[in-house]
């Protein structure tokens, strides 16, 4: 279970998150929508400790992410993250990209790590690209590589930070399909996304962020239905339609 409790985040004078509460149970898929700058991505960074918070607490399986004694490297193994800029490691082949952290973080043998990596690359449909460098992959393939890389650590949770917004339109589908597949397999996911139809289809709950506040959270029927509770949600959804 991921528990976000009243977290506040400032970048200098900019108050990006203004007291967010969110609980995500195992097996749940939560999509976070909202305008750029509303704090959605920052929320993910605060959940896995890539950004510090000024107030509040985040718990992952009961362990406080921002507490002093927490082994953050261990905790992050359980929280796969996929970024907007796919961030494949350009100097490593696809297989090496995926096998590296199982080997050096989880201390698997090279053989074991390679097998894990291969399994995950097959999982995301890159079985014919094992020994290819990222520069020879399309954006969509690189993003699927990033997904496989995160999955290779065998996380319980996956965080997706606008995984498709930097992709050419024709490549979005393959990445969303991979994410759908994960959701179907029961992965617990928090997806920051601008893909409304994806959010509607896949989510158990959808959260709408507005200027650092979670305006509304509820099942997709509520958010995307005729009458979302918040006026801002309604306005946002009307504008993007």
């Amino acid at each position, binding site marked *: 279970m991921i528990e976000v409790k009243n977290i506040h985040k400032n970048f200098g004078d900019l108050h990006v998150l203004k007291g967010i509460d969110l609980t995500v149970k195992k097996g749940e898929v939560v999509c976070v929508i909202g305008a750029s700058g509303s704090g959605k991505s920052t929320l993910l960074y605060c959940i896995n400790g890539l950004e510090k918070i000024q107030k509040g607490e985040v718990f992952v399986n009961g362990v406080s992410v921002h507490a002093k004694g927490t082994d953050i490297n261990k905790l*992050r193994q359980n929280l796969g993250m996929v970024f907007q800029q796919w961030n494949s490691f350009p*100097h490593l082949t696809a297989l090496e990209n995926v096998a590296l952290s199982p080997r050096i973080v989880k201390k698997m043998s090279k053989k074991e790590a390679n097998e894990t990596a291969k399994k995950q690359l097959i999982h995301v449909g890159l079985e014919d690209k094992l020994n290819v460098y990222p520069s020879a992959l399309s954006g969509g393939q690189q993003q699927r590589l990033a997904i496989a890389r995160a999955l290779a650590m065998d996380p319980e949770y996956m965080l997706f930070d606008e995984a498709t917004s930097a992709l050419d339109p024709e490549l979005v589908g393959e990445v969303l399909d991979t994410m759908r597949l994960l959701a179907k397999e029961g992965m617990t996911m928090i997806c920051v996304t601008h893909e409304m139809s994806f959010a509607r289809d896949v989510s158990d709950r959808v959260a709408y962020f507005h200027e650092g506040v979670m305006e509304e959270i509820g099942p997709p029927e509520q958010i995307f239905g005729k009458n979302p509770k918040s006026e801002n949600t309604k306005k946002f959804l009307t504008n993007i339609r």
Partner: protein
Amino acid sequence: MEYTFQWRPVMRQLPDLLEAGFMTLQVSILAMILGTVIGLALALVRMNAPWQVRWLATTWIEVARNTPALFQLFFFGFGLGAFGINLSPFVIVLSGLTFNTAGYLAENFRGGFQAIPDTQLKAARSLGMSASQSYIRIIIPQVFRIIYHPMTNQMVWVVLMSSLGMLVGFRELTGETQFFASRTFRIFEYFMVTAIIYYFIVKIILGLSKLIAWRLFRY
């Protein structure tokens, strides 16, 4: 005034010159290796350390880049000598070249680090890698690729700069040449041959550099 070329004395000393050339290469390669390690450390300190340590790195880099290399050599020779620390000519030249090279490479490294998007570090950390694992496995290999050609330039520069060793009594290629030239007065001939030896040393370095790049950077 007539000047007749006499190449025979030079050719007689050619084995000595080549041996001195090997000395030049030796001190240059050592200075480059040490300079790379220290330069990397200086760059990391300058970018990440608190100011109490950072000023040391900054001062090193500033002095190395903004004063003549010759003065830096003199510092390790006559400067330290004045305090009773007498280093051998080899160590003086090695120290001076390393000091200078570390300063220049530190700035190259800094540029290299800045050229890598900070999301690479975030991605590595998000996989559970520690900060040092992320740097060693993900960031630094990419930095080396970026600054590889500037580093090759620096290596060439070190070889040519090592000729200053003559002025602190080091018998590297130029020192050796000067020694024989002044004994025989065939100054032009000696320096002509030495220039050619320098040329080939540099050519060999550039060739090796290409070979290493081809082997290392497959992406």
